[in-house]
């Protein structure tokens, strides 16, 4: 008894309220913009529906009418309801949305299945709710924040990334991707692809013997290990801002072959041309792709004087001093704000050339040279450059074989420089004396907020004192941030991410 009462009680009022609202609107719709085929079917119902609706209006106030034996809460669905259901059912063939009234549109969108073909929905539906459903249906984990808070954009970006990930050159039809282009060109701003499949080699049957295998691989590399060429796609995407690529294969398991992870010269050239042609690109990431000096130089040459580029990330590659020199040249020929060369093979020479470029640069905010082999020569050059630089806020020199001389120079810089907010010197051999000198430098500094000195052979006491000084600086910065404007989010929490975002 209770069940029967409760379940309709939820739907009852809503239906009736909608019915009162819709009576006039359906009439208006049928007279103005109703599609011709559905017209004969929609005209009679208003006449019929008047009776029940009016009766419903009378009885709406009452849950139960005890004297009426046949009374039931299940009301005959309204014509508008039926129409909407019909529209939803036939949406694929006959998409009617824009002509409807706003509340009807909402209803239709709420009832649409998320697996409609994109050709229908892509340019027609802007409703975030629908796309949210689509996304949640396809991917269990969705970070909409990474896509500018737009579910539609997220859907298209993920969908495109997915297609690219599973694209196999020479076997997959390129039209699969190019057909999507007109549908997603207005929504995609970021392309994140963490694997590019090489063309499948059907010819060589599995051979026993490692030598011959490796030999054949060497030959075939030159022939057909080029990956998908992004040029056409990127040229079509007019709003592309971010390109995040990894030339590699994921989950290869026991099918591992070296040539799966090969970033060929053709790939490199085509990517360079693509990037150069894309004038809206702001962020370019190419990581874990075995980019060596020559390829880096090719890429960077194409990026010189790029109008929009702000962030370049070439971490986890094989870039050496020549590549670093090219990057240094890029620094002075672009508006680059973030440069990431983590985990490469940059040595003292490369660091010196970077330092030279850095000394008079006014754009770069963040420089990451983690896990390189800069050593004291390069470290000293970089710290020396910081004396004149007035822009850099974040510097990562973790794991660079630095030692005391760099620390002494850095301590001098710390007392002069007022722009640096974050320095990372972890995993170096700074030593006890270096730590003391850094502490001295810190005592004069009021702007540094983060100073990572973990695992760098520093006495615990000085590390503690440095952290105390940092804490004081952070408090001061917080006060500074709070005073001009009320209740801003503290900078310390987001400090290093700000320039990126």
């Amino acid at each position, binding site marked *: 008894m209770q069940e029967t009462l409760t379940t309709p009680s939820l739907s009852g009022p809503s239906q009736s309220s909608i019915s009162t609202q819709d009576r006039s609107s359906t009439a208006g719709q049928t007279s103005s913009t109703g599609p011709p085929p559905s017209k004969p079917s929609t005209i009679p119902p208003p006449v019929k529906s008047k009776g029940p609706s009016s009766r419903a209006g009378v009885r709406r106030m009452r849950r139960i009418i005890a004297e009426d034996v046949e009374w039931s809460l299940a009301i005959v669905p309204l014509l508008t309801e039926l129409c909407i259901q019909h529209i939803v059912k036939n949406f694929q063939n006959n998409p009617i949305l824009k002509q409807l009234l706003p509340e009807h549109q909402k209803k239709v969108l709420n009832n649409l299945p998320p697996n409609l073909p994109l050709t229908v929905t892509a340019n027609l539906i802007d409703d975030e709710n629908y796309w949210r459903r689509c996304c949640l249906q396809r991917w269990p984990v969705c970070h909409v924040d990474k896509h500018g808070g737009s579910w539609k954009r997220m859907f298209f970006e993920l969908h495109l990334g997915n297609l690219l990930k599973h694209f196999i050159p020479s076997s997959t039809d390129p039209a699969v991707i190019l057909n999507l282009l007109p549908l997603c060109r207005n929504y995609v701003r970021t392309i994140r692809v963490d694997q590019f499949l090489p063309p499948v080699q059907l010819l060589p049957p599995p051979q026993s013997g490692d030598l011959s295998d490796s030999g054949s691989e060497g030959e075939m590399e030159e022939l057909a290990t080029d990956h998908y060429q992004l040029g056409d796609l990127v040229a079509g995407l007019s709003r592309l801002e971010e390109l995040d690529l990894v030339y590699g294969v994921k989950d290869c398991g026991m099918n591992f072959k070296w040539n799966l992870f090969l970033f060929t010269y053709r790939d490199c050239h085509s990517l360079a041309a693509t990037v150069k042609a894309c004038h809206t690109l702001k962020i370019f990431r190419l990581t874990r792709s075995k980019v060596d000096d020559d390829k880096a130089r090719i890429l960077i040459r194409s990026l010189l004087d790029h109008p929009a580029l702000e962030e370049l990330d070439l971490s986890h590659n094989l870039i050496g001093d020549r590549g670093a020199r090219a990057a240094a040249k890029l620094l002075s020929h672009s508006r680059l704000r973030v440069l990431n060369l983590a985990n490469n093979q940059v040595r003292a020479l490369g660091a010196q050339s970077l330092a030279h470029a850095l000394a008079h640069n006014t754009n770069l905010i963040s420089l990451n040279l983690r*896990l390189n*082999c800069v050593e004291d020569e390069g470290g000293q050059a970089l710290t020396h450059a910081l004396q004149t630089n007035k822009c850099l806020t974040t510097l990562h020199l*973790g*794991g660079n074989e630095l030692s005391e001389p760099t620390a002494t120079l850095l301590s001098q810089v710390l007392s002069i420089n007022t722009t640096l907010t974050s320095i990372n010197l972890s*995993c170096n051999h700074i030593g006890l004396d270096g730590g003391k000198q850094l502490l001295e430098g810190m005592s004069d500094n009021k702007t540094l907020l983060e100073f990572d000195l*973990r*695992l760098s052979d520093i006495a615990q006491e000085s590390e503690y004192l440095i952290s105390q000084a940092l804490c004081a600086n952070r408090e001061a910065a917080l006060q500074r941030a709070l005073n001009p404007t009320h209740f801003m989010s*503290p900078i310390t929490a987001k400090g290093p991410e700000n320039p990126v975002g």
Partner: protein
Amino acid sequence: MNPRGSLEVLEEKEDSAPILGPSIHSDNPQERIQARRLRIAARLEARRREALGEYLDGKKESEEDQSKSYKQKEESRLKLAKLLLCGTELVTNIQVAADIREIHRRVEEEEIKRQRLEKLENEVKTSQDKFDEITVKWEEGKQKRIPQELWEMLNAQQVHCAGLIEDKNKLINELQQELKTKDDQYVKDLKKQSDDICLLLERMEEQVKNVMKSFRQELYHIEKAFEAERQELLTSNKKKWERALQAHNARELEYLMNRIKRVEDYEKQLNKQRIRDCEEYNSIKIKLEQDVQILEQQLQQMKATYQLNQEKLEYNFQVLKKRDAESTVIKSQQKRKTNRLHDVLINLRSKYNKQVKLFQEENRSLTSDYKRLVTQFKELQKAMRHFALIDDKQFREIWLMNEEEAKDLISRAFDVDRIIHMQHLGLPWTAPDFWFLRNVGPISQQQKSATHILEEVLMQAEEEGAEESESESYLDLPKQVSAKTTRKILMLLCDESGFLIEKKLLGLLLPLEKDECYMLRLDAIFSALGIENEDDLYKLVNFFLKYQAHHLPPPQEQTSLVSALEPVEQLVLQGEKSGSLAEGEPQEQKPPPSPRLIHPNDVLKILEAFVMGLRKPRDFQVPVKLLKVVRDDSKDSEYWKALSTVIPSTKQNLWDALYTALEKYHLVLTQRAELLVENQCLEQQNTELQQLLQQYLDSRINSELQAPPTQVFRVPTK
């Protein structure tokens, strides 16, 4: 600033707050300016207050809110920041550890690589040597012909090759071994990394959990603190609100009552007004209806008159038409007549011309006659004047003589009187004081002649130069004008109306002094103008002043002209005159509004007007003057009579009485004198008798006598 204005401004300000620029709608520009100023001031004030308020708020927050919420917030923030920092450090520690392991690995790898490369190089060298050896031996083998040797050598070669290959294989095996160990290492590393990642995940999860928990807790604390604060605020605000509400209710009730009262009042007033209006309306309506009726009647009448008039006019029209016809006839007649008359006119004109000539001749002769007569008359006058003067003189002399005589007599009488009074009556005597006693010369009310005044004026002006103080007291001029002004005017007159003076006189005047010259000239002018006495002179001066006051053109022009003529003198004159006139003004009935200069050019006009004005009174003044010339001697007799009766009749009576008394007294005195004489005689006889007695006494006889008589009686000792 009235409150209404400021309110308006405020409203306006609110209305037009977003619109900048001159958008304050007002008709009065002043008001707009005012409004804008106010608005600017308000804005500045607001900004200042905002800054101040912010500052104060901040302060307050730091002071008051520290109590609960602020403190809580600060605490939680610090706590959470620490937590976050520690957590991130904990999480990133793994990465750092991995990094340092990687570095160590790289260093080791490099070392191993270097060793391996060395080893390989060594091996290459040795194997190359061996290979070279073998190849050399191949050369040797080609030279060998003996199969056994060749076989041996081949065997040896084979052994060598096998050795070489074995070496290589060994190396390969070694390398493969290494590879395998590396593979194992790699697998281990992979495992290690996966462990690390697991650890990382675990820590992250833990961190997330921790952070979430602590955040929730802190949030709860903060919320609690806020809740408490809010509760307090709510209660206080509620109290305030209730108080305000009560006050508001009371006021509202008051307003309501007031309003009800007012509404009732208004209703009453409305009703009254309505009734009055109704009555008024009715009366007006009746009046208007009556008016309408009257007007209709008038309209009818007007219509009737209109018709009548129309008929009349028609009739008139007819008549006029006829008259017109008649008038044309008359016109033609008149034309003829004019022609005739014209002829007559010509004739008459010629006659008139003749007549004119005739009359001119006659006139000439008559004028010559007249001139002659005039000269004769003048001579006669002169003679008369001369005689009159002489007569006067004579009269005066005689008068003086008589007067002197009379005065002598009178003085004698007075002397006598005084003696009588003082000596005989013993009374104090006062000399009687009569007007006529002081009079010298013939009595007359004769006015000073104009020339005399002139002289005085001029003299006075001269004196004025020396001592100004006396100026007012002397001449009794101040009727309306000061002496100075008069003098100025007279000078002006003298300068300007030289034409009135005869040329002969002018020639005579040349050698004379300036003042005298003026005197004579003025005399001549006055005689020409007919000014004879004081009154006339003052009339003239006053006339000048008034004329100047009434008829003067605008002053600027005037002064400019004047200054062009005689700059210094005129200016001085003006100043003086203004000063002098200021004195005279209060007496004047119609003072000249502003003392101005008399332009020399105006003098003639003024004179003309004056003469015209003077002529009328002069006409009937002539006989009067004649009478005046025959001096009235009514007073003379009186005077003389008075002189004769200097000693009044009472006094004369007194004198008479005195006389008789004195007569009597005289008589007594004469009698007495006689008696005295008699007495003297007797005395003389007495003395003689005495002497005789003495003689008798002194005679010897006495001594001889027994009883001398001297003893007997006392001889009077005289």
